């Protein structure tokens, strides 16, 4: 007889499972965490390599000569920006037309759901200006995009200057097989969202924009440039986009290959690569880089203007110029050459980048970990939930030693906690924005805080149920959490893993019989809101800018408000996920704890 159909063997297996359940769960948890930490260890990673044959190696000759002129253009741009107090649209149009591009503008406007304190804006109105360099001999079917944001103050003037300089240089070459669109967007992400929506004829976020007069074909790749000083010491690559989506690894490989060829110092997450992977400090450096990437990906925010392109299956990255105190300095001509080389290689593409990985983690710019290597870490955590579910199932199917009131748990007693917790989630999702409209003098975040606290306070009043009832509810809750975390990890591994790290122990140990006060405390510590609070402090630590508790708390509140804004402005899914799905799940466990 087979292993599972033989009743003796089955009984033995089941008794093994129930006896050793807790030890196995603890071992799995440790193994999952250890696997995750081991991902940054260099022998377990792979070196990056170019997968796309059409891009080949870096054998092009870069001849961009006009770095100084680009910087002068940037200074002119800055002067005009100060004069107009915003985007100097006429000057930009005139300059782009003088360089031989087809210039178009797009107006957009948007009223935010509540005032954004970080960027100090509420009713946003702006203009995007873009020029299209038509390929001399090719049909207008494909395009590449180079963009630089128009930021207030003194930021990113050199980026716009370099963009215009490159536009002039590119216009004189005849080897372009795709149109190149040079875009200067106002109000960074909001302007970029308006432009992309106008380009692709979609309207997912309710923004108001004028239709685009000129188009260039389907966009194959995009680069966004952020450069705020004349001389830089290193170039930083930013990959994380909206909802934790990453561009194809070949784009990062291309950037790294050109950095090595031209000899510019290149970093990822602002951290320079180290060679001593076998020492403790080298390993911790790699772990820090990887954890920064995990944190940024889990937040679901686009960390550069490129982040919004990824949703349209356009591979995009942001290149930031960093000026820190190093000896070796790079000038604008070299950066121009690097961008020229990258664009010449992207020009050779015949189809969209698809040969390399879409899901990866990078402990450094030259090493990566693909989904096949990092998913088992999450899998080990999910196995704990499944083991617990099996254990509960076994307990439910063995009849109880003594019956208490003889009635099997009714569907109603099961359904009530589910419905109530989901309604609370919906309230948490909708109320902050609604109450903001009513009470404008309060800070928006205090509304969120109040809602969360009241929800928790209210919830301690619960309905009675039978002894078996909590087991059924816990079974349902554990399976629900497993499915939820599994789906989240598939799309955004970092978010799924971080939630799993905190919620899986909660799900595993909570029963009505554990000491109430201590468990309530632990449950609150491991709730999604507190996880977010700890992540904020951890993130600041990783960036080597530790902050005090007061600043941390304010930062935490601003993170929540930014999350709500991201959701309404760009369609980020982290806020609805947490409020509508994860938070009700956590509430179910709270309910189980206080089952009487």
């Amino acid at each position, binding site marked *: 007889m087979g292993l599972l159909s033989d009743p003796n063997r089955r009984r033995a297996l089941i008794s093994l499972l129930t006896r050793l359940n807790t030890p196995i769960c603890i071992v799995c948890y440790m193994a999952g965490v250890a696997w995750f930490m081991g991902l940054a260890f260099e022998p377990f990673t792979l070196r990056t390599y170019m997968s796309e044959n*059409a891009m080949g190696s870096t054998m092009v000759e870069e001849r961009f000569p006009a770095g100084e002129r680009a910087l002068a253009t940037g200074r002119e741009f800055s002067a005009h920006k100060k004069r107009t107090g915003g985007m100097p649209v006429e000057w930009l149009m005139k300059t782009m037309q003088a360089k031989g591009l087809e210039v178009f503008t797009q107006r957009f406007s948007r009223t935010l759901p509540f005032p954004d304190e970080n960027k100090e804006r509420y009713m946003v109105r702006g203009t995007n200006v873009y020029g299209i360099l038509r390929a001399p001999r090719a049909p207008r079917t494909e395009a590449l995009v180079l963009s630089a944001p128009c930021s207030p103050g003194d930021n990113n003037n050199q980026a716009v200057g370099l963009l215009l300089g490159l536009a002039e240089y590119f216009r004189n070459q005849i080897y372009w097989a795709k149109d190149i669109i040079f875009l200067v967007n106002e109000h960074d992400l909001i302007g970029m969202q308006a432009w992309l929506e106008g380009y692709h004829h979609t309207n997912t976020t309710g923004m108001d924009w004028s239709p685009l007069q000129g188009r260039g074909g389907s966009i194959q790749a995009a680069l966004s440039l952020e450069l705020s000083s004349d001389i830089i010491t290193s170039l930083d690559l930013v990959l994380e986009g909206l909802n934790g989506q990453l561009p194809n690894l070949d784009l990062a490989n291309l950037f790294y290959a050109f950095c090595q060829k031209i000899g510019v110092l290149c970093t990822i997450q602002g951290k320079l690569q180290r060679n001593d992977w076998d020492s403790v400090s080298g390993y911790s450096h790699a772990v820090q880089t990887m954890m920064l990437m995990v944190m940024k990906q889990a937040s679901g925010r686009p960390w550069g203007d490129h982040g919004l392109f990824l949703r349209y299956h356009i591979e995009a990255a942001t290149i930031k110029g960093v000026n820190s105190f190093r000896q070796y300095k790079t000038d604008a001509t070299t950066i121009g050459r690097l961008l020229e080389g990258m664009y010449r290689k992207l020009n*050779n593409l015949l189809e969209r980048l698809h040969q390399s990985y879409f899901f990866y983690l990078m402990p450094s710019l030259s090493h990566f970990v693909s989904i096949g290597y990092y998913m088992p870490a999450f899998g080990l955590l999910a196995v704990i939930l499944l083991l617990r579910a099996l254990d509960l199932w076994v307990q439910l199917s063995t009849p109880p030693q003594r019956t208490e009131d003889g009635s099997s748990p009714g569907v109603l007693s099961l359904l009530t906690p589910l419905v109530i917790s989901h309604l609370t989630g919906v309230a948490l999702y909708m109320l902050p924005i609604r109450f903001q409209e009513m009470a404008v003098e309060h800070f928006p975040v205090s509304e969120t805080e109040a809602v969360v606290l009241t929800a928790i306070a209210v919830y301690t009043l619960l309905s009675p149920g039978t002894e078996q009832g909590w087991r059924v509810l816990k079974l349902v809750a554990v399976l629900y959490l497993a499915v939820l975390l599994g789906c989240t990890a598939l799309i955004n591994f970092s978010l799924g893993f971080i939630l799993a790290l905190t919620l899986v122990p909660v799900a595993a140990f909570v029963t009505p019989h554990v000491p109430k006060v201590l468990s309530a405390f632990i449950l609150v510590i491991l709730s999604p809101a507190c996880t977010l609070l700890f992540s904020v402090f951890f993130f600041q630590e990783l960036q080597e800018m530790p902050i005090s508790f007061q600043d941390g708390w304010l930062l935490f509140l601003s993170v929540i408000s930014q999350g709500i804004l991201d959701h309404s402005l760009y369609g980020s899914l982290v806020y609805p996920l947490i409020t509508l799905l994860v938070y009700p799940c956590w509430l179910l466990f709270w309910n189980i704890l206080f089952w009487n």
Partner: protein
Amino acid sequence: MYFLLVYMYIKNHVYMFPDLLGCHGKCRRYLFCCFQDRAGQFFSSGHTNNWAVLVCTSRFWFNYRHVANTLSVYRSVKRLGIPDSHIVLMLADDMACNHRNPKPATVFSHKNMELNVYGDDVEVDYRGYEVTVENFLRILTGRLPPSTPRSKRLLSDDRSNILIYLTGHGGNGFLKFQDSEEISNVELADAFEQMWQKRRYNELLFIIDTCQGASMYERFYSPNLMALASSQVGEDSLSHQPDLAIGVHLMDRYTFYLLEFLEDIHPASKTNMNDLFKVCPKSQCVSTPGHRTDLFLRDPGSVLITDFFGSVRKVELTMETINLTDPIDAESGELQKEMHTYADQLPVSEIIHQKPKQKDWHPPDGFILGLWTLILLVFFQTYGVKHLKHIF
């Protein structure tokens, strides 16, 4: 034996010597002793015309070097005398007019743009998507539809020496055509056997420049084939040099050194095949070139390069006159009756006067039978057998 061969040659090809028909005994003896000392040279190769089939099988801009390979062999072959009417050039993609080419209308084989192999007078017979395995095999075997123009046909006969050059991406036992299909070494060997049985070649030189190229000639079994490959099984053929202005590799190593070797050959060269085997040793090519001569009847040392790469017609100038005393009359022309006619490769008269084929009557096939059986069965099931008498 030797004189017998010569005599048989003249008998078979007597149409080439019309002014000799009237010669009787004295003249024939004169004929033999004139050719005696030159015959060894003149008749040693046994071919009268040369053809070349040059194929580049890969497309896309990053395969620039394969087109450059093929065009450089085309250039050598044309320079040494084979006319365009005897060359079938197949290029799978247009590099010269590709949008990414910074120097349009050129294909360079040396970096710094020293040598433009595209030239002014290149004639491509099969271009773009017409370069398929089917078309290639149809060219070799001659099975082309009647509407195919002459420039797209290999109109060779049993006295033709053919040069076949293939380049692209390959593997162990196959060559990839255009990223969508492959030709295997067995197919190629069978195609050559078909050519031999249809007497479509006298001798054939097969050169292949791909990765693991030696696997393509392993299966040949027809006589008079000589093959060269740029690398052995398990080795990759490497590209030679990139040009940074254009941004691609320009040539493959083997063909680069082959081109350098061929640039030194002129129509009167006496270089033989053993020198060709030495082209691109391992130190230059990194891969080990291979060759196969066991199916070839002559000794490779006696085979001239120009036997395949050039189209050399030996012309003998003579200042001596021959007196034709008797006029040619019809009765003494027994030799005329033994004239052989040239086998018509393109039977135009048959094509023009073709009658439509009559279709034979076929009994209804299984489907119709089955359908009628089904109808009958259903009918009898519903209405019962007793109604049979109403029908019959």
